[in-house]
């Protein structure tokens, strides 16, 4: 066990936390934040596992994948936020609920 496993565990924790918030909250902005937290958790696990060989240089392939992932996450977030603003403009609310708006 080295310190990188601590970060990997924190990553799984963040993923679960984000998943919980994604299911429980009804506000769309909160859901977008939750998805971003889930993504950060996955990135943390990837980079932590890349650094697990003690003493050696970390594996650059997961690093490259995470950099790509960060940029994809920000563009997906921008698209999701634009959709949220549009939903608000159309329906007057930015929350999901069980009863359908008439």
């Amino acid at each position, binding site marked *: *066990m*080295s310190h990188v*496993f601590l970060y*990997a*565990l924190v*990553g*799984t*924790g963040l*993923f*679960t936390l984000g*998943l*919980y918030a994604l*299911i*429980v*909250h*009804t*506000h769309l902005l*909160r859901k977008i934040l939750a998805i971003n937290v889930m993504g950060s958790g996955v990135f943390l*696990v990837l980079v932590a*596992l*890349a650094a*697990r*060989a*003690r003493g*050696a*240089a*970390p*594996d*650059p*392939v*997961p*690093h*490259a*994948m995470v*950099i*790509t992932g*960060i*940029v*994809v996450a*920000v*563009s*997906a977030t*921008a*698209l999701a936020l*634009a*959709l949220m*603003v*549009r939903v608000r*403009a159309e329906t*007057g*609310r930015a*929350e999901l*609920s*069980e*009863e359908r708006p008439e």
Partner: protein
Amino acid sequence: MKKTMNPKSMTESGKIRTPFRLLLMVLLSALAAGLGYAVSTLSSQSPGSGEWVAANLETSGVSNPVTAVLLNFRSYDTLLEMGVLLVALLGVWSLGGIPEQRESSPGPVLDTLSRLLVPVLILVAGYLLWVGAHAPGGAFQAGSVLGAAGVLLLLAGWRLDARFAGLPLRITLTTGLGVFVVVGAVLMLVGRRLLEYPPSFAGALILLIEAAATLSIGMTLAALFLGSRPEAGPDR
């Protein structure tokens, strides 16, 4: 938050009843425990692909392994990722009609700050782009710094001149993907595989692709921040 006018939305997170919430907590705790167990039982000595990258680093044209992976060994990732950025921007633009709010004038602090910071940010972007060949940095970092400069300009009330909002803007946005595809296609025409650079030109090709990608990433991120499509047309 003005929650009072819409009684249906008053309970932001109160829609899910307590038994379901408890069940969810139990299930997710099981998931977290499983994931944690899986992660902690992984072997702590795994070579991964680091050794392979280190062995082939000399042929890649750059000496920073992450840049080598991003733009040489797995450059199709980066190629497709440029496509993802464009598709996201297309999605935002196709939603149209996001009302752009006319803010009041930015005020002296933001105005002066943006005048001071934007040239520095552009300089930093150029530095990151150049240094990415042998030290931490590269197209994504440079592009996002450029995008931050664009966001700062937009916050200070600057808008792209209508002359450039049409075709020139679109050309800039697609340059990154375009240069990537052209380089890949030319390499295939001369008998190599897609994006398989000849080692003697690899450094120059990577710098060319990275420069175009930096410009496109920066512009795309700033355009994503603006949201609505910039108005083209001679009169404003």
